[in-house]
């Protein structure tokens, strides 16, 4: 198997006293639909936010395509590696900011959908194409030919993704006028529009009816066929078991098990963890 697209080495995140993510080692293999499950407060969303760069880890490393998601700002580059100032230099190390990660190819959706309510459905997706187009203020202001071409391209791609999630006919509606299920699809389409290598889906199934869930799961499969690695955090077990090829189980910030659906279901710790608080997971 090729190198994992995403790898975390004893990744930890603490909010004040409480440790949300505790020394987690993950390997997300390229092109394999992976689900991260776990009872409430297991630190799934925090993990996502760490990977997406919303939070910055207290310790540990995140490797994307084998490259660390940290970098040295220009003023630190001067210092030669291995020089005696190295420790000092490490202090200057910065995390790659969220928007940079997006252009590197990490896309994500949100638990609360976070669409742009002040735009139409189409514009939402066109905005997703942001990192895939270049022209700036002047190009825009003066309507340079290059800008026009890019706009046309953006438009085409946007329609493509829109049709892919089957929202083509709503293109010019306000994004928030759609029902919840379609809003979720739209959010996924917007994430896809950034043409990512890795897409993080945060509870895509929450609040969908059976039909919509079925649509969702084959959308996820189609995403895989596009060569994009999908990782989802999900409470809905049937959905997870149906779609995920690899499942990672978190409990109170620690990874307690991973494997295929079958393996995980048999795992003692997992059962314990869930039986521990069915109630919560039921309402989650």
């Amino acid at each position, binding site marked *: 198997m090729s190198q994992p697209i995403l790898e975390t080495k004893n990744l930890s995140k603490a909010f004040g006293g409480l440790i949300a993510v505790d020394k987690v080692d993950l390997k997300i293999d390229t092109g394999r639909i992976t689900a991260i499950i776990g009872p409430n407060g297991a630190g799934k969303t925090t993990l996502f936010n760490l990977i*997406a760069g*919303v939070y910055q880890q207290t310790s540990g490393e995140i490797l994307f395509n084998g490259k660390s998601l940290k970098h040295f700002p220009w003023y630190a580059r001067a210092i030669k590696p291995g020089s005696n100032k190295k420790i000092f230099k490490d202090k200057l190390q910065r995390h790659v*900011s*969220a*928007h*940079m990660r*997006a*252009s590197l190819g990490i*896309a*994500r959706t*949100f638990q609360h959908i*976070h*669409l*742009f*309510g*002040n*735009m139409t459905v189409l*514009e939402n997706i*066109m*905005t*997703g*194409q*942001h*990192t895939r*187009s270049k*022209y*700036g*203020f002047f*190009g*825009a*202001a*003066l*309507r340079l030919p290059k*800008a026009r071409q*890019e*706009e046309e391209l*953006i438009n085409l791609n946007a329609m493509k993704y829109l049709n892919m999630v089957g929202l083509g006919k709503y293109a010019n509606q306000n994004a928030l006028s759609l029902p919840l299920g379609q809003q979720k699809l739209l959010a996924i389409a*917007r*994430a896809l*529009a*950034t043409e990512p290598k890795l897409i993080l889906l945060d509870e895509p199934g929450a609040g969908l009816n059976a039909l919509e869930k079925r649509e969702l799961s084959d959308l996820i499969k189609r995403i895989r066929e596009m060569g994009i690695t999908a990782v989802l955090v999900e409470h809905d077990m049937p959905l997870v078991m149906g779609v995920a090829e690899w499942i990672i189980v978190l409990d109170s910030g620690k990874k307690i098990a991973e494997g295929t659906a079958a393996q995980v279901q048999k795992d003692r710790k997992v059962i314990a963890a869930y039986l521990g608080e069915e109630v919560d997971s039921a309402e989650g």
Partner: protein
Amino acid sequence: MLAWIKKKWNYFAIAALLIFLILIPFDWFLSRYTSLMIIIGISTMVTAGLCLLMGYTGQVSLGQAAFYGLGAYFSAVLSKTYSLNPWLAMLIAALATGAFAYAVGYPIFKLRGNYLAMATLGIGLIMWILFNQLSQYTGGPDGMSGIPYLSIGGFTFDTNFKRYYLVWCFCLAILFLSQNIVRSRTGRALRAIHGNEAAAESIGINVNQFKLKIFVLSSVYASLAGSLFAHHLRHVSPQPFDFLASIKLVVMAVIGGLASIWGAIFGAGTTRFLSDEVLLGFNKYPQLDIIIYGLILMLVMIFMPEGLFIAIKSFTFWLKVNWRELPSIMKRKRKELPNQMKHIFRQLLLMRLWRKTEP
């Protein structure tokens, strides 16, 4: 035919707008409003920048008059004291103001909402005090006069008639550029920031950078407007760039409907027309004009917070949709009116109760 006109409507609109604007300063038309229209044009330029910043990007600035003033003073000082070519002075002014805005904005745009408002307000006040205090350059509170006219080759803009066209060329140019920006990748990024910063970050938009860029752009607009203002009046004093001026600019932007570039003309137009034409009728009674001004501000903000412009727009749209039913609606409304009054009255009376029952 009619359909064709409908299809090409906005071209007709542009044409009509241009013809109208071109005709205004002629004696047989509205020459009496030439000077007012010059000020409106200048205000529109500042307002357009404010619309980009506030309406599209959702960032508040209560200090815009500072950049307006910087433009005016840079032009005035460079072209008078150091007798530079006015156009060159204008260019330098724009660049310098932009640089200043960048330097100031870089730290400030870490703040949001009300705190951003406070910070920008602070900047505005500081600049205003400096305009007053650095009298060896600015001429102090009474300002400096004798600023040269703008001129191209032998052609000098020495009458309102000429300056009118100069200002409106600048103004329309800025409006069209802004329009293009809004309807582009950049514009979408700005609206994305307004819509939801987290989501914007997640799709690779560098939020802080864009905020800063648009802030600088709006300050450059303001600076250009200021330069034109200086060369129009040929006198600058700190007073037109004080706190109240910043507020008046915001008011223009809001009345024009924040998220609409063309609303800027409307906003600047109505506000100036109101204060310089309509309210003058009321100054027989002491203070009545500012009383009315205050009332209008409140009423507009309370009942059409999305701006007068948008309100009129939606109302006419509503008319277009059901103008046939209008009479019947009127009848119904008249029937309902007493009940509604009673309802409102009850609400006011039993406010406590009413509030409790409210969700």
